[in-house]
């Protein structure tokens, strides 16, 4: 209990200071912040936490058992808001549902909610006009409920949802020059995703995408200025499709959810090919720069079906293979680095924890070439950990790595695709530990069919290892989330993971003497 209570003391102190400063003690979400405990603002009287303790759940085992992590605080629990919470910039869809949902998860013990913010929604019609009203309203709701907020800034769309893919003015630029979009070998374009090769080129009406991102970050920082000190505790930068740093190696028009094929390389737009050509020339192998690998698999192929990823004697092991894959992966890291640099420049002064998401490429993990990782851009020469270069970049930028597969279990369906979520998670954690990057977690999908996924999340979040997620976000609210098929199991899960955190004894006595307490028992 000692670690806990000293922590609590800080928290309460912080709470007081916060309240004095702000007049309205309610504003802040009151969290034992991960790094920013000093900010901690008001209190959440019915902290989750309280519930957890009430229900008699012990706080996480790590307290006694573990000697490694006594500097770590309990993981914060977020719940994702619907992806289409705001779709037109000005109004909140199903606002009452969002309010009720927030209140429900708050009472249940969540620390905060995650709000997906889309470029296409907040800056829809012209580069000069931002419409933050809808998102602002949601942020205010979270503040009023006493919840923390993690904002995810998506630059790429989410096909299949109600959210527009890209801002109209970006789409028109893409219509003029489709090569600014990711393109696969057969010429299929990803309408939601700008090629990493155009980051610094003035392809959008005279501006480069990075300039646009910069303006977007700054406008966001400006519009939510007053909440950074309190409600908004985390900002997650979307570095690619679905907010993940990766190539859209799945078929165009889908969102990659549920796609378990190897996928295809996405280097066939004019700009990528140009970079490849130049890179090959520099490497003294101009012929390697003419196109992508000719023997790479098609989207749904198995890795053995073609030459490139063959376990034995596949081209990936050749010098060409290493050249191409290194360049391909380097482009990804370079993109992530550039965008995070811009984000740091714009948001560096705000006291929020920066994070970004990596994909959880757990299928075809059995193949030696790790083909699914490789086509998504995760590769390191010599058969080393493909997540390593990315983790290194994250660490350098002080950015937390969000791992979105904390719930993925082995099951029949995964087995046939050579999936190995356990090993992948270890692999990612190793990469992050080596380079000193913090991690956080998400679930890949709503836990409906396999409730064992909840225990898996639980063990991943409440783990005693050093690489323990600083926060976990359960994705996400919506109809299915609150349905009788899902909700009860989720409630059980949260009651199980939420750590007890109840005011210290001496504070309790204050309450004991207060008249209101007596009122609970009218004669």
């Amino acid at each position, binding site marked *: 209990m000692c670690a806990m209570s000293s922590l609590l003391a800080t928290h309460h102190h912080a709470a007081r200071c916060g309240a004095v400063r702000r007049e309205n003690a309610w504003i802040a979400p009151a969290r034992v912040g991960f790094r920013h405990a000093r900010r901690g603002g008001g*209190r959440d009287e019915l902290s989750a936490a309280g519930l957890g303790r*009430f229900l008699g759940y012990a706080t996480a085992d790590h307290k006694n058992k573990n000697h490694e992590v006594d500097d770590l605080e309990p993981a914060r629990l977020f719940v994702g808001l619907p992806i289409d919470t705001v779709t037109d910039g000005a109004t909140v869809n199903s606002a009452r*549902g969002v309010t009720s949902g927030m209140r429900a998860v708050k009472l249940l013990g969540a620390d905060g909610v995650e709000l997906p913010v889309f470029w296409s929604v907040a800056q829809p019609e012209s580069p000069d006009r931002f419409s933050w009203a809808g998102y602002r309203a949601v942020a205010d709701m979270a503040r009023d409920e006493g919840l923390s907020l993690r904002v995810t800034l998506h630059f790429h769309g989410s096909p299949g949802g109600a959210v527009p893919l890209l801002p109209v003015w970006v789409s028109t630029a893409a219509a003029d020059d489709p090569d600014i979009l990711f393109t696969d070998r057969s010429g299929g374009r990803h309408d939601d995703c700008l090629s990493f090769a155009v980051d610094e080129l003035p392809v959008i009406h005279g501006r480069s995408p990075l300039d646009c991102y910069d303006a977007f970050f700054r406008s966001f920082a400006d519009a939510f200025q007053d909440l950074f000190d309190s409600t908004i505790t985390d900002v997650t930068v979307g570095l690619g499709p679905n907010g993940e740093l990766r190539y859209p190696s799945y078929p165009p028009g889908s969102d990659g959810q549920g796609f378990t094929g190897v996928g295809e390389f996405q280097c066939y737009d004019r700009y990528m090919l140009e970079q490849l050509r130049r890179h090959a020339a520099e490497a003294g192998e101009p012929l390697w720069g003419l196109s992508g690998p000719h023997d790479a698999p098609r989207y749904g192929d198995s890795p053995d079906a073609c030459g490139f990823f063959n376990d034995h004697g596949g081209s990936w092991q050749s010098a060409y293979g290493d050249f191409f894959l290194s360049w391909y992966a380097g482009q990804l890291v370079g993109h992530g680095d550039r965008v995070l640099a811009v984000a740091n420049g714009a948001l560096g002064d705000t006291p929020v924890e920066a994070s970004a998401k990596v994909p959880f490429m757990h299928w075809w993990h059995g193949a030696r070439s790790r083909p699914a990782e490789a086509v998504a851009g995760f590769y390191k020469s010599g058969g080393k950990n493909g997540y390593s270069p990315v983790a290194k970049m994250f660490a350098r930028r002080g950015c937390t790595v969000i791992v979105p597969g904390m719930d993925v279990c082995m099951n029949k369906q995964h087995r046939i695709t050579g999936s190995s979520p356990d090993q992948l998670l270890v692999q990612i954690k190793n990469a992050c530990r080596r380079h000193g990057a913090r991690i956080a977690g998400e679930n890949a999908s709503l836990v409906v069919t396999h409730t064992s996924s909840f225990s898996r999340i639980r063990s991943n979040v409440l783990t005693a290892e050093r690489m323990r997620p600083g926060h976990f976000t359960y994705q996400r609210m919506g*109809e299915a989330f609150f349905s009788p098929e899902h*909700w009860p199991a989720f409630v059980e899960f949260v009651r199980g993971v939420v750590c007890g955190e*109840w005011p210290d004894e001496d504070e309790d*006595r204050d*309450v004991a003497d*207060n008249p209101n307490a007596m009122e609970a028992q009218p*004669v």
Partner: protein
Amino acid sequence: MAVASWSIPAIPRAGPTARGVLLGGAFVTAARPPVAWRCRATLPRRVRLGGVVARAGAAETPVAGSGEAGLLFSEKFPLRRSRTVEGKAWVRVDAEPDGEGKCKVVIGCDVEGKWVLHWGVSYDGEQGREWDQPPSDMRPPGSVPIKDYAIETSLDTPHNSEGKTIHEVQIKIDKGTSIAAINFVLKEEETGAWFQHKGQDFRIPLSGSFGGDLLGTEQDIDVRPGALGHLSNVLQKPEGPIAEPHKTVPDDKGSRTKHISGFYEEYPILKTVYVQNFITVNVRENNGTTKHAVEFDTDIPGEVIIHWGVCKDNTMTWEIPPEPHPPATKIFRQKALQTMLQQKADGTGNSLSFLLDGEYSGLIFVVKLDEYTWLRNVENGFDFYIPLTRADAEADKQKADDKSSQADGLISDIRNLVVGLSSRRGQRAKNKVLQEDILQEIERLAAEAYSIFRSPTIDTVEESVYIDDSSIVKPACSGTGSGFEILCQGFNWESHKSGKWYVELGSKAKELSSMGFTIVWSPPPTDSVSPEGYMPRDLYNLNSRYGTMEELKEAVKRFHEAGMKVLGDAVLNHRCAQFQNQNGVWNIFGGRLNWDDRAVVADDPHFQGRGNKSSGDNFHAAPNIDHSQEFVRSDLKEWLCWMRKEVGYDGWRLDFVRGFWGGYVHDYLEASEPYFAVGEYWDSLSYTYGEMDYNQDAHRQRIVDWINATNGTAGAFDVTTKGILHSALERSEYWRLSDEKGKPPGVLGWWPSRAVTFIENHDTGSTQGHWRFPFGMELQGYVYILTHPGTPAIFYDHIFSHLQPEIAKLISIRNRQKIHCRSKIKILKAEGNLYAAEIDERVTMKIGAGHFEPSGPTNWVVAAEGQDYKVWEVSS
């Protein structure tokens, strides 16, 4: 813990919006002043207080703030202390006949009050609720017959015995009587409270007692499932007048003495009475100085402590004033002061006066009598607030914006509960209660979120006003009928007795239609374990105590011929099983829907269901149906459609819809496409110190949430309005009939087209009387609901009583002036003894003793007039 010095968390829960209330320590101080202080704790309260005080018989009325030079504030607050009176009731049977060959039964009680014995007899040994009126020679003089099954006899004027007041009544019986038992309940007229025995009627077995061998036997009460759920409701969740003063009949632990000549039994009675006291607070300018003299004066004897703090400006941040403090003051945790008042020399109470710096704008206090007794402002349930500045400061406060106290009501209640409970952390049981409360609230919110995400709509950010959809209403499946409906509840709790109710009701079709009714609500038609029909068993067997299926169809036909629609009473929440499972538990169903225990919810402790957890509250006397099961839903849909087609029902009255999620109701209604549907969502209103809260938004919110979950396909009985009418009429507090926004305070103020207003039904009134409308004021109630928006429902017993001519007149006004469920209402007056409103600019009504005449250019003519009510309409 080092105590922070920056704020005084003086007194918790400063107001309904005190969202800053903290769990453990500092109770801060929302920046904005809570709405209740602003509008109810300051000026208007004085006005109302006049009424309260006068009614309590005190001569003094509050002094106006500016009446005396230098007097800044003066007010006399009523205080309410509770005192428990213990006593007993007894039953004595003298089996020895007197000179006339009669035996004597004596029923008595030694608790103060005006006691009435409500009783009947039964002739056979069957332990049921069949009551009959006793033969006239048995009735003591002065007895009043109640319908045809009971009589009421006052207990005799008190006479003293051994220094105690005793109320008794004697009933004489022929020795050779065929009467098997006397059944009774006791009623205390002043409070309207009913006393039952373990939730049942008292029963005096007669035939047995003369035999002599029943004397010592346990007077066991048989289980009568029919009423069980409802009765226990009343005792556990006091509602309306029963809530206060709170009386209970605890378990029968009374001594049991054997008399040679009959039997004698005692039942302890616990009655809580309230004692009215006052505390007067005067604030004066202290000549010449900037200080204020504050004076407390109370008539409570013994030790009285004022627990108080002050605030500056309008920050509403509570502080302790600097020293010197008044004598006998303790600092309470750096947060408040506790000052003991000084005994007055004449022993009539306590008083104290002290000086306070002029810089403070307000003083807040509660009165502490002992560790367990804290008295707050009975007017609003909050702490007393004393402004220390003149009215301008108050005006500032009024400006303070505060719009959303209501939405947070529930959640802050829970928080308060947490605050209350954390103090007694040792009590595991309490924690469990809290845990349940929180989880229930979470479930409610999740269900609401589910229903909204399920049928997404774009809400404006401004928040929810339930905009009535007059323009987009779809008559096909709106469940609200034409909007001009007037409902007749076509039965009471006794209607099953004749065995021919359908025939009797059908014969009244023409009469009801000509009175202006458009819909009749018929009793639950299925085979049922209880004769009243609310314990359904075989859903496809429609022969019941109300008559055969053929008679039912004939009755429906007669109503259709008379141009009226017929609602069936559908009991979907629970169903009685026909067979036992291997454990001997009754959870295997029979008949056409031969479900097994998978159809029973898993969390109903009595019935060992194997379904999912209940999506609502459980009804305890029968297996609760698990509506989350697909097969259950499809069976029920089919059944409803069958009844629509086979019987000809036009719609539904849905019983106990608290028991399952409203979304399922939506499914059922979509499938059965009723012309009109109304659900019974009945739970308790909010009370503080036994007094009904003014703001019942949380209560109506629950009902509205349910309607919302049904997607508006069903209306709901406006229980909120009934509850508020009770308090308003009974206590002459007509101000309750306007909410903080000047609209009607019940569901009808928020979602009139889905509110089915009523003042009585078979549960609240009739022979059950669980929550009876204030006696003699029924017409005022009907004036209210028949002139207001919403869909009014009139109770059978009232239609066929002396009230009929006046009710008929009111219905004809409603129809003549085309008042409908979405009519516009403007409240003109809502005061102590007067409520007046104008509806659709065509009708003006007033209820209450106060004088009112409509004004304005319109030419109003009186349309109806009676005891404490008057209705005007526009002359045509």
